[in-house]
């Protein structure tokens, strides 16, 4: 079962990388073989959790020993405007005896307790390595529990050892397609209903975009899964259009929704001024093609014109401050090239970017924008990054939290671009936030101080101290 699913997600016609592969390569799948002793990153279960946990009113129950949830819960910055149930960590905390006797009964009991105590609209049950090894049939348990308790109980079949975080994202998407999307009918539909896939509302980013959509008259029927509600996700099949945000991870959801319900999808981004505008334009155009009132195109152009002029005006003060400042940008996939234009628009110089998660198309696009001279690294070792920073080849590094100490230990400014951050960077206002954050850290007075030699390392300065 799971093997078939894996083959299926690996053979994704909507994925540009997959399309350029030969038949044989395609069969191998897209997960790179991990090198023992030199691997980094999360597992498939981690990825599935990232994609589904933002569904805020559902209970998320992890079936496995304590490591899978105990070490990881309460560590993501996805926000909800209502229910906070998603922030509660549930696990069956499998013990030795559960492994010997099998964990199915305990799992059922756990589901029952959660339903009785919290009455969520649905329970997501995450499979992990250990119960997968001992053969706990969580699909059967979920089916039984759903029938008995009268609630959707959804098995998420992405045990960690099947692959990477990215694969887990995809498997989470498949779970929604198999068990959730299409199971609830919306009370009202409008010709401008959209579904956004792959937006997790980190630091409340969706809330920087939603007011603009409201103003234009586009309704988010369902968001998968930022600030999500179970019933909204289950209604996604009635959307008129799907926007897929993080293209590599969840393109399977967009494509299969098109296949099943004839909903066209496009890939877009909320990061960066021009990408944001493109996204709004595409959204309006495709909705009109599907019969929405033409007026939304004018309203969209109005919003774009106003927001763009406003954002450029707000970025103006940063330009002289950013002049000549060089940025190292290490971030996954689509975000890289989305942000490049925005940062350059504010006067920064990008000296290089990682393209580990980017597709060939992405790379070509960056090359076209930046020329052959521009550095694109596929896999740069931490030691090399450290050296570049130590040698002052950049003034600031922007990356995910895990690599922050490479920059900080080199005493170079660093800014968090990934899921642990507290500031939203999406939309027009998000770019201003981003520039403000960059400016704050670049102009902080600590950088000069922390680089000073210790008293025992150098002779005292002959000059008197300035008052």
């Amino acid at each position: 079962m799971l093997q078939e699913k894996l083959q299926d997600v690996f053979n994704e016609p909507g994925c540009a990388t997959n399309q350029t592969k030969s038949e044989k390569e395609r069969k191998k799948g897209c997960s790179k073989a991990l090198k023992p002793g030199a691997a980094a990153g999360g597992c498939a279960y981690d990825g599935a959790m990232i994609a589904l946990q933002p569904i805020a009113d559902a209970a998320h129950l992890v079936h496995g020993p304590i490591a899978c949830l105990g070490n990881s819960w309460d560590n993501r910055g996805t926000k909800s405007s209502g229910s906070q149930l998603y922030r509660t960590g549930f696990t069956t905390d499998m013990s030795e005896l559960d492994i010997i006797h099998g964990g199915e009964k305990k799992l059922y009991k756990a589901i029952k307790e959660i339903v009785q105590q919290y009455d969520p609209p649905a329970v997501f049950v995450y499979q992990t390595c250990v119960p997968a090894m001992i053969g706990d049939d969580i699909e059967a348990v979920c089916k039984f529990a759903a029938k008995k308790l009268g609630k959707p109980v959804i098995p998420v079949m992405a045990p960690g050892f099947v692959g990477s975080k990215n694969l887990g994202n995809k498997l989470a998407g498949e779970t929604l397609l198999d068990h959730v999307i299409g199971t609830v009918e919306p009370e009202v539909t409008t010709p401008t209903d959209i579904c956004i896939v792959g937006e997790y509302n980190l630091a409340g980013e969706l809330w920087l975009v939603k007011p603009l959509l409201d103003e234009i008259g586009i309704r988010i029927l369902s968001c998968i899964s930022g600030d999500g509600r179970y019933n909204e996700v289950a209604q996604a099949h009635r959307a008129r259009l799907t926007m897929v945000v993080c293209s590599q991870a969840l393109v399977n959801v967009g494509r299969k929704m098109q296949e099943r319900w004839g909903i066209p999808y496009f890939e877009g981004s909320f990061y960066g001024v021009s990408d944001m505008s493109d996204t709004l334009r595409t959204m309006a155009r495709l909705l009109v093609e599907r019969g929405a009132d033409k007026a939304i195109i004018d309203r969209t152009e109005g919003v774009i014109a106003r927001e763009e002029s406003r954002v450029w005006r707000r970025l103006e003060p940063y330009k002289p401050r950013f002049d000549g400042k060089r940025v190292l940008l290490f971030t996954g996939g689509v975000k890289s090239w989305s942000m490049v234009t925005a940062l350059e628009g504010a006067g920064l110089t990008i000296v290089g970017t990682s393209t580990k998660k980017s597709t060939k198309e992405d790379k070509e696009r960056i090359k076209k924008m930046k020329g052959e001279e521009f550095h694109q690294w596929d896999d740069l070792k931490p030691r090399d990054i450290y050296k570049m920073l130590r040698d002052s080849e950049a003034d600031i590094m922007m990356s995910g939290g895990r690599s922050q100490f490479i920059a900080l230990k080199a005493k170079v400014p660093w800014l968090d671009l990934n899921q642990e951050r507290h500031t939203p960077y999406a939309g027009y206002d998000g770019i201003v936030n981003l520039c403000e954050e960059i400016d704050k850290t670049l102009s902080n007075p600590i950088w000069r101080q922390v680089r000073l030699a210790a008293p025992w390392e150098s002779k005292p300065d002959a000059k008197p101290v300035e008052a």
Partner: protein
Amino acid sequence: MGTIQRFPHSAKAASTNPLKMSQPLGAALAFLGVDRCMPLFHGSQGCTAFGLVLLVRHFREAIPLQTTAMDQVSTILGGYDNLEQAVRTIHERNAPALIGVATTGVTETKGEDMAGQYSLFRQRNPALSGLKLVFANTPDFSGGFEDGFSAAVTGIVEEVVQPADFTVKGQINVLAGCHLSPGDVEELRDIIEGFGLSPIFLPDLSLSMSGRQPDDFTATSLGGVTVERIAAMGASEATLVIGEHMRVAAAALELKTDVRSLFFDRLTGLEASDRLVRTLSELSGRPVPAKLRRQRETLVDAMLDGHFFFSRKRIAVALEPDLLYAVTGFLSDMGAEVIAAVSPTQTAVLEKLKAATVMVGDHSDVETLARDADLIVSNSHGRQGAARIGVPLHRMGLPMFDRLGAGLKVHVGYRGTRELLFEIGNLFLSREMDHDAHGHGHGGHGHGDGHEHGQHCGSGSCGCSAG
């Protein structure tokens, strides 16, 4: 470890907001207290990623931690090849002095024979005979953080310590349990060196996890006790064993070296500190240094000044067992009433706890037991529940991701006890001073999430925003 029946054990099937963290994570922390070490999890890559993120968030430091990256096939066919490849790769890339291997739920469920794999590795890799290799059996599905820490320290003792036929005068071993922060270890070193003694800490987190500024990039742990110093532990005059969970390692050390063990169940509190100081004075044959005499005086004074605010205060404490013992003991010493002591795992030390209710449970149990408490003492994960019931939270233990300097908190010795007394006392004091105008039941004070849950603060004077 025997099962303690007389304590109520949570009858829930779903552990909710877990307090427990897994064994391998504890093992990783112990290994990080050894200089030039690389901890390695024998399991799927997610096991490592979660542990890494948790430790990074707590210590705000780069955490070296690698994985054998087990996938489905290697899990079924056996993980030796992955293990060997990982060790060799780490050796080639980072040349650590010690690689500490911790098993996980995946490899333990399969039943990997670690002793056999160790012998096989040594046979097949004679060129790596200089590399210290420590294996610890740390299944995710039994025990917890403290047990993993203990297993790793025991493993290091068995692999690295050498018996000696001579004694180095003034050399003292300290087996430092995981309830001691890097700051605590630093404080203990100060106290011990004050008597002219030369301590060897195993592990020594004060040298590796307290905020190092490296001259160059290192992929292994930077600082910590060196392998050479650990080997020399056999020539010490005595071993100070700090914490119940260090007893197994102490027994192993005594068995191997005949160095006598002196056991300390806690070092927080006046009497506990007195015992340590008396012991050190006897061991060294020196009088107590003036600095410590002054510190004792100020602690006594602090107790006199502070006891008003502790008397009959109702406090719920949820921490790892030995820290739980130290903190509940200190609170009882100050006249507070420990209404609930919640431990993530069952261990012998729970027998000695003084509390109205002692239970093995999770943060949701704390939420239930602490409804009419004046204070909760727990890790940062306790903040959601504390906010819901409107009880202030004093953060201790690990993880503490929403406070700076988590690793440098000191609560041992006269000075550390005084610090803890002031921190907790000030929470009570500020409530009594500032909250009269608000009436009773004002929640959310002193923790970050109060306001998210709809609690409002009439004036700015109560300092809630400082939470």
